[in-house]
């Protein structure tokens, strides 16, 4: 059974159809890149998978581990292992990052019927992961993403990914706003999380990111559809020829 199966998905936002029948299959252990010009519907797809309100699915279905994802509340999806690393992670003033991580992790565990982490176990785990991501401890005491640099925000997303151990990670424009050094740290963090039991969907406008996170498959999106799929070389082809060839598809 595929981990994620998006079948002929049609989505409307404010009466306008954005996705016009999108199909995508992702198996465990695979890394898929989704590339496409701005406005092609990449973020929309990620939001619909995660369950963001405001999108109307008019046709098609999304199966996750064989279950109907669209029937689940977004927090339920998170507990089941769907993780979305946001293009623009929000700030939550007054809520210490550490508190947030713990609240979220325990909420997920509770939803799965698992016991909550004890304080020492939790702290140990956070320390381990944050160290490998070069995240200083005092950053964890600050409000969630408040005053974080672009790179810190993205690392904070990867930190959460590492902590929550989701089976599906969707990374929306991970590279936007990052310089090469910041990108490398974040990408290393992501690569460390690649595992046979986990799949990743890496959304990006630019080929650059894929030098660091090398995908197994590449899909090109244009105007709300996947117009071409291939192996990782497809990304390089696109780099050379651009998206214009798909604009009329």
């Amino acid at each position, binding site marked *: 059974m595929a981990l994620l199966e998006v079948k002929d998905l049609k989505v409307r936002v404010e009466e306008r159809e954005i996705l016009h029948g999108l199909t995508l299959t992702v198996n465990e252990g695979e890394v898929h890149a989704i590339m496409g010009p701005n406005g092609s519907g990449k973020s929309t797809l990620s939001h619909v998978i995660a369950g963001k309100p405001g999108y109307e699915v008019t046709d098609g279905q999304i199966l996750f581990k064989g279950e109907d994802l669209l029937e689940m509340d977004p927090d339920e999806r998170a507990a089941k292992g769907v993780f979305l690393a946001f293009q623009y992670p929000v700030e939550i003033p*007054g809520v210490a990052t550490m508190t947030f991580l713990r*609240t979220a992790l325990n909420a997920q565990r509770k939803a799965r019927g698992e016991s909550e982490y004890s304080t020492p176990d939790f702290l140990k785990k956070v320390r381990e992961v944050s160290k490998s991501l070069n995240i200083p401890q005092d950053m964890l005491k600050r409000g969630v993403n408040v005053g974080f640099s672009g790179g810190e925000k993205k690392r904070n997303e990867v930190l959460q990914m590492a902590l929550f151990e989701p089976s599906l990670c969707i990374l929306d424009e991970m590279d936007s706003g990052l310089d090469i050094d910041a990108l490398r740290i974040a990408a290393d963090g992501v690569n460390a999380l690649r595992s046979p039991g986990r799949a990743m969907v890496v959304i990006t406008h630019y080929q650059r990111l894929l030098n660091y996170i090398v995908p197994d498959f590449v899909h090109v999106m244009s105007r709300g559809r996947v117009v071409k799929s291939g192996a990782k070389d497809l990304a390089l082809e696109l780099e050379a020829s651009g998206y214009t060839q798909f604009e009329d598809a």
Partner: protein
Amino acid sequence: MPAVQETVDRVKRIDVDQYRYGFETLIDSEKAPKGLSEEIVKFISQKKNEPAWMLQWRLEAYRRWLTMTEPTWARVDYPKIDFQDLYYYAAPKPKKAVSSLDEIDPEILKTYEKLGIPLREVAMLEGVEPKVGEEDPARRKIAVDAVFDSVSVATTFKAELKKAGVIFMPISEAIREHPELVQKYLGSVVPTSDNFYATLNSAVFSDGSFVYVPPGVRCPMELSTYFRINERNTGQFERTLIIADKGSYVSYLEGCTAPQRDENQLHAAVVELVAHDDAEIKYSTVQNWYPGNSEGKGGIYNFVTKRGDCRGANSKISWTQVETGSAITWKYPSCILRGDNSRGEFYSIAISNGFQQVDSGTKMIHLGKNTSSRIISKGIAAGKSQNTYRGLVTAHRKATGARNFTACDSLLIGDKCGAHTVPYIEAKNSSATFEHEATTSKISEDVLFYCIQRGLSQEEAVGLVVNGFVKDVLQQLPMEFAVEAQKLISISLEGSVG
């Protein structure tokens, strides 16, 4: 007391006795009949065995009250109150005895559980009494221990306070046992003529707390735990008086995160604080009165007058409040900064949901030199509620070097509620520096979705974001209470979204 005064008092007492005659049947009853009159005021005073001066004080207030009209300037809307259709005296009812937690409404237990109030304390709050000769399941055991505990705990507290010389007792007792202190200070901060509700309170106040901290004494404990367990039946017209003598310190906590119901819809409390030279009073409130049902029916009307007098140089008074209950809240804990270099603080979280209406804020009256004040107000409006911050900061001509900083932030949840900020600022001398900041924002859908994507439920997400919003104020609460208040905030907002 001068001789003439004493004679006058005696004569008045005779007068009282004559009235008493006419009240024979009434005296034995637990409740005065509906309505307010001089007779009722006298009845209340007699029930409490008050000295004549106290009755006189009440009567003067009552006569004054007759000439007053209800204030209408607040942004609250409610049907006109018929003051003759209310009860003004009912003997405090002992709680219906229950023998185990099993007998308590599961809904109430659930709320306690959410608040994280330990079961033993629930047993105390709900008045669980042990049944003799019964088998002893674990739960009942807790209850039994708790009841025994509350007695011993209270006794220990009392001994410790006595050693420090701190007087802490119901004001009804203080009137009899420390008349010189009560007479000196009662009404000295909130005069009997102050405002419609304060004047009403002066005439008919039921009970409340009296605290006196002698010079140089740091009160050895928060006056809270004991209070929470034992002093809950203070009635609808609560009266509290706290005096911190020179160089002393006291922290007082009023209220309870546990939900509170009352048959009496109208509550009009008065709290007076007096801080002498170098003294400090920290007064924290958690108010969770019944807010009314989902259609906005019922709910407590809470018209409170709270004022602190920084009477001495270098004195400090700090108000912290977490307001989540009541259908109507009309409340402006204030500071009169009379002593030079004195300081007033107001930290407030006011949450309204459903059909609640909150009009709350503070007044900082700068009279002395180099006085300073700080106001941090966090208003959260959800449902169809209205939430108003109303503040006044003034500097007298002589208050040179007065400083104030005000920050009022409002958070809206949903689009059927309203938040309003009404600041008045008045500086009568040019050396005053007053700073004011205000923001109003809507709770962000993107922030909520971010939290939910990480596994929080909608309600948990709202609770988390709101708790972040009010953090600066929560930090002002005594530690153990901050944790409870945090949970209370989340619970108050349940059902506010989606």
